[in-house]
């Protein structure tokens, strides 16, 4: 559906992207992760055909996005990273204008989206908060029911409730067979929606990973407080991987074998169990560190 081949672009400042290649399958939700300034938006602008690559190309629906700009765009939804609307319009006027440009007549889907994201579309854009503008942008990206949706940091500015509503929207679109690519520096957001993710740092792809595999790789830390220090010591000696121990408290790392952990715990009197989740961020940071150490 979407293929990037050795996409390279160097800006005057020396920054840019180098040899970015990956492909997104039809019906897949693909995450694009990296810290600020890593090249996420630059890559996305190439995918949208706004920039001419120095080398390589982006192919969407079988078409080179730079050479066939204007053709590729039908059936593509886009949410820019930094939203800038045309001045002097209300949200609804802007959406109406964009529908005209997209040559879409159907208003029903747009109205449903507005209702769903709960905002007053008749507010002048210059009076809108960041979150509200983001909502207008999300509606604009989805309202023409595109086959492919490219989202640049879609949840920035949204409150947790709206982030949840957005994730639901993405999952629905995925269930309807749409292809989505979303960039983010928020790992939990990608974790909840994506099948695979590419990680970019300093303009180059570090790795492309299967999210489910990463989730399986994810370690969980349990901190168990026992009645006595003896019980704690016995628990620690049972073969689980102990991270830390202090008096009657033991912190163990569990990866996959939850049954064994439950078994060992239930043998003793337990006062309390705390759970610490190692998030994907930590896993990704491992990737970064490994690469950094290698360099």
């Amino acid at each position: 559906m979407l293929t990037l081949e050795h996409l390279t672009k160097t800006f005057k400042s020396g920054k840019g992207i180098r040899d970015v290649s990956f492909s997104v399958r039809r019906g897949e939700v693909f995450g694009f992760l990296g810290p600020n300034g890593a090249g996420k938006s630059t890559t996305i602008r190439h995918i949208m055909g706004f920039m001419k690559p120095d080398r390589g190309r982006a192919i969407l629906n079988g078409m080179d996005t730079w050479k066939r700009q204007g053709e590729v765009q039908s059936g593509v939804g886009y949410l820019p990273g930094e939203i800038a609307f045309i001045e002097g319009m209300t949200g609804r006027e802007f959406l109406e204008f964009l529908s005209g440009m997209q040559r879409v007549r159907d208003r029903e889907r747009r109205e449903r989206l507005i209702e769903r994201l709960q905002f007053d579309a008749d507010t002048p854009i210059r009076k809108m908060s960041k979150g509200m503008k983001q909502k207008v942008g999300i509606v604009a990206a989805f309202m023409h029911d595109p086959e492919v949706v490219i989202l640049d940091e879609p949840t920035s500015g949204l409150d947790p409730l709206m982030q949840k509503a957005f994730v639901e929207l993405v999952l629905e679109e995925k269930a309807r067979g749409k292809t989505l690519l979303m960039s983010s520096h928020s790992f939990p957001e990608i974790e909840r929606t994506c099948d695979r993710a590419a990680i970019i740092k300093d303009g180059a792809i570090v790795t492309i990973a299967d999210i489910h595999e990463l989730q399986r790789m994810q370690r969980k830390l349990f901190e168990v407080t026992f009645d006595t220090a003896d019980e704690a010591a016995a628990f620690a000696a049972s073969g689980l991987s102990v991270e830390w121990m202090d008096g009657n408290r033991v912190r163990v790392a569990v990866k996959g074998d939850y049954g064994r952990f439950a078994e060992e715990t239930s043998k003793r009197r337990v006062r309390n169990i705390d759970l610490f989740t190692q998030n994907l961020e930590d896993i990704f940071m491992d990737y970064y560190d490994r690469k950094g150490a290698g360099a």
Partner: protein
Amino acid sequence: MSAALYKQMMRVNLKGFLNYAFGSAFYIFLMFWLYPGIAKNTEALDDIVATMPEGVGRAFSLNGFDSAEAFISGEYYGLILVLILAIVSVQLSTQLMARMIDRGSMAYLLSTPTTRVRIALTQACVLVSGLLLILGATTLAGFAGKAWLLGDRYAFDGGRFVLLNAAAFLMFFAVAGIAFLVSAASSDEKRALGLSGAIVFGFYSLDLLGKLGDGIAWMRGLSIFSLYRPGDIVGGEAFPRARLRAARGDRVSLLRGRHTGIQTEGSAALIRSSPAPSAARNCTKRAA
């Protein structure tokens, strides 16, 4: 051209267009209102002008006061309208391209199934429409002013007045074309504004300086504004064919300068035809 974009851009910019159109119409009304008072003292005024150094009269287009359009061509078309339209050309062309690229709203336009060329062409049409609107309002205001304020008591050649406006339109079609090219080629709003402003007002200054002194008359040859001579039109020099040709983007034409009351006698002026209309075409290619 994209109809939806054109409509929207006209809506966004209409207020600005109307402000300039209203201002220009009002000013021309004012000129017509003033003219009867001036007409009474034509001779005295002509004497005063005659005492000034020749260059000053040329530079500030003192074309004589014996007919309403001569007065207006000098006082309005020679100076104030030029400044107004220069500001509109520079500001609007920057707004229509560079600003939208700089601020990122261009991304939204490009994310729809509309090619870069079509977007640039549409924006150029908005620019030309703005100029047409302002000059159309000015022309209408001129005829209205003649009807209400001058009546049949004073000389006024309607045909020449229309030519005056047509020349101003073609001139600024070219000037706005240059500004639009600069705007389309830059990704930074401030740089586009600075550069196109420097080019347009640089041209204007060269023309003005060239008119002031005979020794530096060659400076006019460097300026596109030397092609714009409202005084010639009302002076009965008709509509210089070279100017029309220049607006079409022909190469170079050599014109003999003739005495028109403001031109120096027999000075050969090398007139470079304006590259601007082709520049307007190029800029859409550039953007592509």
